[in-house]
């Protein structure tokens, strides 16, 4: 037992400084990975508390053991399975009143708890006075006031943590035990007596967690109990009590209020500061709307799209890779690899090194680095939830909610990443809807610039825009039809605005970048191999030939087939191909417009398709491919007939 490295789990509400504590304990050496059987990421790291080595897990934001979101369910599962040696709850001192409910739940679960009363600097600035010693005595566990931003209280926190780990500081029985209404109390006691298995949390906490349906947890419990029949009966009995969840929450809050009497002194004046004034400015639809537009334009379009996807990519890809590294690689391959097939697999135009690795390093890396940098900035400052609030109403009209602003904006940068970001949405319906919209009607930065350059005439650009909007609406209503259109309940906490710290942002950006590269690198290598197989099996020309008849139907010459095929491999290759074709003068104004619209709406690029498949399965990919192929072709047909009208033809030139 003592041979094993002690396990420390950090828990707490979102935005309270858990990750900060994690970084302080582990020196930012985190390994981020999915918790087994879920898509939720957890950061694990080796750290040191006083003189002993420990393993630290940073859990995702967590409001209650009565878990709702997949992230919370994972944290609960973790506590139940792993039997941590120490649980540190990080609390935002300003919100002690409502965060104490979670403390009570953790104590009820019998976990070895230590409370870090963080952000004491902010609480003091707001005029709050907290007697942490009195609170500690009442709770029966140590409560350490900290301001982790300034490392304040870290030493004492470590000292207390070491004491709990040594076993010299045991949680005492709280002076005032948590009491539930009699009917509920009886059912809980009954439930406890039914359980026989052994858990990392108390039986009472297990019974309470059964109040919500969570299949993973139920499986876990039924394997320990040996029967699932009994669990069902237990849950039925619990639900015979009216509104058990409300009663539990109310009892915990009553208890918190009792505990805080004499502990917490709140100033009588309302909080009203610079940050508060700025916050009001940001949530006002007029002023906030303008800020949102500026953030989207300058942050995402100019910084990520322009600087990251333009300047940096050009620098890395053209200057560094195409001019320096690629010729070297090809020459090396010619010298040492006598087999053409191997040479084509590794280098030349579509090889693993020249396409797979090059995409990842010279294109994805700069785009994602600028994106994650900006994203971490608006996330840490607390701007993001305010933007979500502003846009929620509009988003609900297309079956999404305000949080979808993240993946949809991302889509203008890179669709593959955007599909990955749909994970942040709550319901499966929203995730599928957002993924469909992204695949269909949101052009990524790779093609956007070239398309805009292709359509110099206002009329053409306007027609293109109208077609894309039409497709967006069609996809939105189609998606609503397919995945259901219940206006999703929206409830979002708006944290206070904070000045982001550069160090934290850089750490966060680096961690995310590392994670993302690990996700996409295998994808791009897979694509290189796929192209190689296509070329060697002789399928390549046949695929291009198969594209020609439908293109002829919308008035496009057979030469364009190659463009669309390239467009599938990489969006900007398609757009660039079209650009070249236009310069040869093969296409008239109407045909250019048709090709531009169809290319924009055409099936997503192969990387995005692979990501869609990984996140949502093969059936969804098939649906997306069929929808996009059909919709883009229909739009092309529409434009073909429109441009046949002499008036419009004259306008297009």
């Amino acid at each position, binding site marked *: 037992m003592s041979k094993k490295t002690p396990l420390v789990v950090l828990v707490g509400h979102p935005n309270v400084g858990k990750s900060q504590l994690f970084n302080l304990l582990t020196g930012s050496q985190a390994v981020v990975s999915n918790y087994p059987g879920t898509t939720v990421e957890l950061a694990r790291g080796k750290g040191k508390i006083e003189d002993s080595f420990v393993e630290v897990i940073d859990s995702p934001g967590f*409001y*209650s053991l*009565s878990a*709702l979101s997949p992230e919370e369910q994972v944290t609960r599962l973790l506590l139940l399975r792993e039997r941590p040696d120490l649980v540190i709850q990080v609390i935002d001192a*300003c*919100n002690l*009143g*409502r965060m104490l*409910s979670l403390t009570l739940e953790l104590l009820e679960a019998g976990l070895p708890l230590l409370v870090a009363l963080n952000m004491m600097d902010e609480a003091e600035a*707001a005029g709050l006075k907290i007697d942490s010693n009195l609170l500690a005595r009442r709770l029966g566990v140590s409560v350490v006031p900290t301001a982790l931003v300034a490392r304040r209280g870290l030493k004492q926190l470590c000292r207390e943590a070491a004491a709990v780990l040594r076993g010299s500081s045991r949680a005492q029985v709280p002076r005032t035990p948590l009491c539930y209404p009699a009917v509920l109390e009886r059912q809980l006691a009954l439930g406890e007596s039914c359980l026989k298995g052994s858990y990392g949390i108390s039986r009472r906490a297990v019974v309470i967690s059964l109040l919500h349906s969570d299949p993973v947890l139920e499986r876990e419990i039924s394997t320990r109990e040996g029967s699932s029949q009994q669990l069902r009966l237990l849950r039925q009995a619990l639900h015979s009590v009216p*509104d058990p*969840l*409300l009663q539990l*929450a*109310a009892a915990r*809050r009553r208890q918190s209020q009792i505990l805080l009497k004499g502990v917490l002194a709140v100033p009588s004046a309302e*909080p009203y500061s610079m940050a508060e004034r700025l916050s009001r400015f940001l*949530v*006002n*639809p007029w002023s906030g709307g303008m800020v949102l537009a500026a953030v989207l334009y300058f942050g995402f379009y100019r910084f990520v799209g322009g600087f990251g996807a333009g300047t940096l990519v050009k620098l890395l890809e053209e200057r560094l890779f195409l001019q320096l590294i690629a010729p070297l690689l090809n020459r090396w391959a010619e010298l040492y690899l006598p087999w053409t097939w191997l040479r084509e697999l590794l280098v030349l135009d579509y090889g693993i090194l020249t396409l797979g690795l090059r995409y990842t390093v010279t294109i994805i890396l700069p785009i994602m680095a600028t994106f994650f940098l900006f994203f971490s900035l608006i996330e840490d400052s607390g701007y993001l*939830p305010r933007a*979500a*609030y*502003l846009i*929620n*109403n*509009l988003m*609900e009209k297309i079956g999404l*909610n*305000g949080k979808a602003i993240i993946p949809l904006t991302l889509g203008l940068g890179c669709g593959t990443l955007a599909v990955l970001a749909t994970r942040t949405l709550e319901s499966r319906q929203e995730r599928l809807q957002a993924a469909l919209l992204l695949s269909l009607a949101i052009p990524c930065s790779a093609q956007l610039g070239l398309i805009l350059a292709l359509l110099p005439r206002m009329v053409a650009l306007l027609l293109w825009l109208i077609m894309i909007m039409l497709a967006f609406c069609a996809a939105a209503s189609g998606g609503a039809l397919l995945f259901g259109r219940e*206006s999703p*309940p*929206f*409830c*979002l*906490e*708006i*944290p*206070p605005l904070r000045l982001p710290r550069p160090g934290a942002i850089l750490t966060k950006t680096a961690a995310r970048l590392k994670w993302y590269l690990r996700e996409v690198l295998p994808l791009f290598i897979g694509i290189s191999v796929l192209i190689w197989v296509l070329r060697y099996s002789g399928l390549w020309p046949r695929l291009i030939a198969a594209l020609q008849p439908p293109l002829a139907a919308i008035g496009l010459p057979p030469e364009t087939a190659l463009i669309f095929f390239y467009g599938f491999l990489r969006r900007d290759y398609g757009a660039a191909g079209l650009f070249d074709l236009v310069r040869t003068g093969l296409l008239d104004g109407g045909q250019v417009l048709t090709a531009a619209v169809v290319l924009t709406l055409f099936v997503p690029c192969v990387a995005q398709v692979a990501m869609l498949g990984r996140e949502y399965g093969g059936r969804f990919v098939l649906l997306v491919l069929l929808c996009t192929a059909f919709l883009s072709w229909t739009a092309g047909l529409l434009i073909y007939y429109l441009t046949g009208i002499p008036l419009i033809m004259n306008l297009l030139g």
Partner: protein
Amino acid sequence: MIRKPVRELILLHRMKPGQKGVVVSFSEPGDSAIRRLMVLGFLPGEIFVLERSRPDYLIRFGYTRLAINKRVASMILVNKMTGTMVNR
């Protein structure tokens, strides 16, 4: 001196920005958004201010601020506090 405030029982989405209220009950305590509100500490008895009602509802209680949509707001029964504030 404690003056008894005038109170009026209404649904939260009928309140006007700037008004104060006390949560009385939820019409659907099982709804996922309501459960979220409960774990956030927005429970019967809580005093709050409705800061904005457009484009969506923005409520503040203590040092916590929440955004909810009309669907959620219409599930919350509140006692609107008009006239005098509660002196405590």
